[in-house]
């Protein structure tokens, strides 16, 4: 196997580039130093916990290389003799392929291979849940951007030119782009109802019936899809990929290549953000096919436009909600009709529908429920995993409904939520009992309500005052100089999000960790080596593993081995689960090593243990009633947004986001704050700007010029109140933290804009023309 011309992913001892065993060479590299510089321990346990453990915020192992630019992201990989691959994609949302002529492309000097569906060595389809996505379109295309052919050439530019020479004869068909019509026609990936009691309109004092719409958000990771496939010379392959789940990739790739999984080694490449976009395969099978055909390393790297077409998006949604409440604002019933647009292929739509249905009411107590949720199949871009995963869309709807109830009854928005808040022992609409809090904890003789606890903490956090004089950058429109205060009104709003942590609905989710403790030959210090397949997507998971090892083993030096498929599966860096799952696996393996270490001296040889960690078992939702303990863990986040709106121009400036989140246990406070900041900003993006705009199935804004994500001027200071109500079942009591703020910031911001404008605002992102629609010029 050729060595990379450039070392893929520094730091070499931590990253995901090329596999390297925990040999003497690795041990000589600079290990992760604990802050505080403790003196070396000897070969026996000391019982002392060095700095940089769980609860601290040591500097990340990869921090320096990411800051100084030395870190190799997947797009930086380079190998000797490497070819470049490029994908030819369908310009049509729906068409039959009558013929493909590759002769002109192949005739171009420097082109090494042009492959189509006919060249796929194994199975023609793959998928995360259902294998329905063609590797290359086998006779029809079902969305704009669907891969039709792949090219390998000496340069990327040449590969692109060759792709333009591939002559595809399409017979264009009328695309189906309306998700509601698709559901009517029976075109859907999943239908999930939830039934509880008997929702009767007449029983309620106030009835709020509204329709909501959520646009198609994109994960917009800054690192484009990229990887390199390297043939091993014996028919096997090494794939360097930036993915959220190596083993799931392998399971999907191997059958398509017609290779036994053992013939393929997956090595993690540096990941530049994921947010769900790297759950589905992108370059993997294509570059592997090209490498097998040409016998040379093949690199693929999408440009920005291709990235927007080459990964799934967040499901757009249309939701019809009806809430009935009594005169005190307590929920009597909820009816919801939820249509998520899954686009052309299944991806994770089935699981997204399950979340949308089971979380459709939020963290509120209600006895009578009728929810119907669909994931439609259309010719729009495929949708799948994105931070919040089915919880985001319904959260916008149910929180808007809660505000409408409060409005109708003249209640404070916090009070209406407090009155309906679930407490320990209450049931979610899927029948699952809220049980993940200290059972002995009670407030005024009432069962503990985790939501009420969070809501009450806003009492002593004042809304920021309006400053006397403001620079234009502090006002809506920013440097656009659109207002010096003219037309500006302030608004305040709240949002609550409820997110399931880890994989739900009976999925056998687990993670694997191997920990090896040995003495450094030179210094005599014990060094812990950790080997997992868990993806560091920027969340700080590598750092957390070193913290856990320091805490559990009492050693300072921890070396992370490259993440690859030589380790057992870690599951996905998704569903806010990696601290819980791989953190749990590393903890369990460390505990095993620690036990073995008792009464032993490392001079007698290294100690090693591998542990597989599982969370509690869950159940599928009943297909008719939606009942079943489908979730592992529930996490709550509450936002208060303060906005200034230029009501004449419809421009919004979010001036403050205050967030109260229950994280169970803060394992790394700095990383945790980063997760809350980032999740809140992503929810802000959905509230006021982020949308993939499609027209007849065609994406109209596949660029950062027109797909807008928040800049620093759009992102307000955030005040965080981190609450630690431990989950007795979870490692260290933690609750997954990455997703919940993404849910709650969107409805909080929209509620604040409603407060400023008095407009109903039932669609996100809120655009300027939505705020000025009825204003006279």
């Amino acid at each position: 196997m050729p060595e990379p011309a450039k070392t893929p992913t520094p730091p070499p001892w931590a990253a995901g580039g090329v596999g390297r065993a925990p040999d003497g060479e690795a041990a000589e590299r600079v290990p992760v130093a604990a802050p505080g510089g403790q003196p070396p321990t000897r070969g026996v346990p000391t019982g002392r916990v060095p700095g940089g453990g769980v609860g601290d915020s040591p500097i990340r192992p990869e921090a320096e290389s990411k800051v100084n630019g030395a870190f190799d992201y997947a797009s930086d990989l380079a190998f000797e003799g490497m070819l470049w691959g490029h994908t030819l994609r369908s310009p049509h949302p729906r068409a039959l392929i009558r013929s493909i002529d590759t002769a002109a492309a192949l005739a171009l000097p420097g082109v090494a291979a042009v492959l189509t569906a006919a060249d796929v060595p194994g199975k023609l389809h793959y998928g995360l849940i259902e294998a329905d996505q063609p590797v290359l379109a086998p006779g029809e295309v079902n969305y704009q951007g669907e891969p039709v052919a792949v090219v390998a050439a000496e340069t990327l530019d040449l590969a692109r030119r060759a792709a333009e020479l591939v002559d595809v004869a399409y017979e264009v068909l009328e695309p189906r782009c309306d998700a509601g019509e698709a559901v009517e026609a029976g075109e859907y990936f999943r239908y999930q109802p939830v039934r509880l009691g008997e929702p009767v309109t007449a029983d309620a004092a106030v009835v709020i019936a509204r329709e909501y719409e959520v646009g198609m958000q994109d994960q917009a990771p800054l690192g484009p899809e990229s990887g390199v496939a390297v043939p091993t010379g014996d028919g096997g392959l090494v794939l360097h990929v930036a993915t959220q789940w190596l083993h799931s990739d392998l399971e999907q790739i191997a059958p398509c290549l017609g290779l036994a999984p053992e013939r393929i080694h997956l090595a993690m490449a540096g990941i530049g953000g994921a947010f769900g976009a790297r759950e589905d395969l992108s370059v993997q099978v294509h570059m592997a096919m090209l490498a097998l055909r040409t016998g040379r390393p093949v690199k693929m790297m999408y440009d920005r436009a291709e990235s927007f077409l080459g990964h799934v998006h967040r499901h757009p949604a249309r939701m019809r909600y009806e809430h009935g409440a009594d005169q005190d604002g307590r929920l009597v019933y909820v009816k919801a009709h939820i249509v998520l647009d899954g686009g052309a292929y299944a991806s994770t739509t089935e699981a997204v529908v399950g979340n949308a249905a089971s979380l459709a009411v939020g963290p509120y107590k209600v006895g009578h429920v009728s929810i119907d949720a669909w994931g439609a199949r259309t010719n729009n871009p495929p949708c799948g995993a994105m931070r919040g995963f089915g919880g985001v869309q319904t959260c916008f709807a149910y929180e808007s409904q809660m505000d409408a109830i409060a409005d109708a009854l003249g209640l404070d928005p916090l009070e209406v939520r407090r009155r309906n808040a679930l407490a320990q022992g209450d049931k979610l609409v899927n029948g699952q009992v809220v049980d993940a809090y200290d059972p002995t904890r009670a407030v005024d003789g009432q069962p503990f309500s985790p939501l009420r606890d969070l809501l009450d903490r806003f009492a002593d956090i004042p809304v920021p005052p309006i400053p006397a004089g403001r620079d234009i950058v502090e006002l809506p429109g920013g440097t656009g100089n659109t207002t010096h205060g003219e037309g500006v009104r302030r608004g305040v709003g709240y949002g609550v999000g409820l997110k399931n942590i880890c994989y739900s609905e009976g999925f056998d989710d687990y993670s694997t960790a191997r920990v090896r403790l040995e003495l450094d030959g030179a210094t005599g210090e014990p060094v812990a080596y950790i080997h997992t397949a868990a993806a560091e997507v920027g969340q700080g998971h590598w750092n957390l593993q070193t913290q856990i090892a320091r805490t559990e083993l009492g050693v300072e030096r921890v070396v992370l081995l490259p993440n690859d498929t030589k380790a057992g599966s870690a599951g996905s860096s998704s569903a806010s689960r990696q601290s819980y799952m791989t953190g749990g696996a590393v903890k369990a393996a460390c505990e095993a090593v620690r036990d073995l270490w008792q009464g032993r001296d490392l001079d007698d040889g290294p100690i090693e243990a591998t542990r597989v960690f599982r969370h509690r078992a869950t159940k599928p939702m009943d297909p008719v009633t939606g009942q079943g303990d489908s979730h592992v863990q529930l996490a709550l986040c509450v936002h208060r947004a303060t906005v200034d709106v230029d009501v004449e121009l419809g421009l919004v400036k979010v001036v403050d986001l205050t967030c109260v989140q229950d994280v169970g246990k803060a394992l790394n406070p700095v990383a945790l704050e980063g997760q809350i900041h980032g999740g809140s900003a992503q929810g802000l993006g959905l509230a006021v700007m982020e949308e993939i705009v499609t027209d007849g199935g065609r994406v109209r804004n596949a660029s950062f010029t027109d797909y807008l994500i928040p800049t620093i001027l759009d992102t307000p200071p955030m005040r965080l109140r981190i609450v630690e109500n431990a989950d007795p079942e979870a490692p260290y009591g933690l609750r997954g933290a990455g997703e919940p703020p993404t849910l709650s910031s969107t409805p909080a911001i929209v509620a604040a804009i409603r407060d400023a404008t008095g407009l109903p605002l039932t669609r996100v992102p809120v655009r300027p023309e939505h705020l000025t629609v009825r204003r006279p010029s």
Partner: protein
Amino acid sequence: MSVATRADFHRPAAVGEAVRLLAEHPEAVPVAGGTDLMVAVNYRHARPEAMLDLTGLAELRDWTDEGDAVRIGSGVPYARITAELATVLPALAAAARTVGSPQIRNRGTLGGNLATASPAGDGHPPLLATGATVEIASTSGTRTVPIGEFYLGPKRSALGPGELITAVTVPKAAGPQQFLKVGTRNAMVIAVCSFALALDPDARRLGTGIGSAGPVPLTAPDAEALDLPWSSPGRFDDALAAEFGRRVAAAARPIDDVRGTADYRRHALAVCAARALRRVWTTAHDRSPR
């Protein structure tokens, strides 16, 4: 085997050499900051066979005080316009401040904005409002084009083959000026629409410029002709400002696109124009009551 396709890259050291190279290589595309051209190349909307690098032309990279006007070399980046010309050319400096990000403003040039001639270019409205002139060189000499005659269509201008924009001459502000740009985020955004206004209290004249609301950057002559209470400025009121806004909106010829609707653009222009007029009027008459 080397198969890399290469583009010729010319690096003139003087404007004379540049226009001679341009005459000899009509396929060469001039490039200065590259903030438009290289994006087009990266998106494969453009694949120039040759480029003419303007960054070696020192004479394009400075501005000079011409008494009543400032002559800005076409290679002066936006960051310098913002930092150095805010007092004498306030509308242009304000527009330059809204271009892209700091990195883009360090690279991008006013000459490039004109050469691209996108209706959304931020530099155009202030140039229209102030009556700037564009200086164009070729092997046959230098000509100047009034800004109002420069824009011919979307991304089409009076710039002919073999011609190079060398400078823009902008009259110094004779009174308060405003530039307002509407975008769907608070920074680093292409204009949904924009508006520039220059007030000359002594000449009793208004100059207007409209961006991103028509096939070319536009002026609003009807709005400029609005009868204002020059002799008794205290009689200026919101109704006049609103009427000015209506006339500006009526001059626009916007379309619906992914950045905004035509209706919204007209509405926003009316609001922006009314605000701009109120601001310049108030500033002019607070400073120098007459």
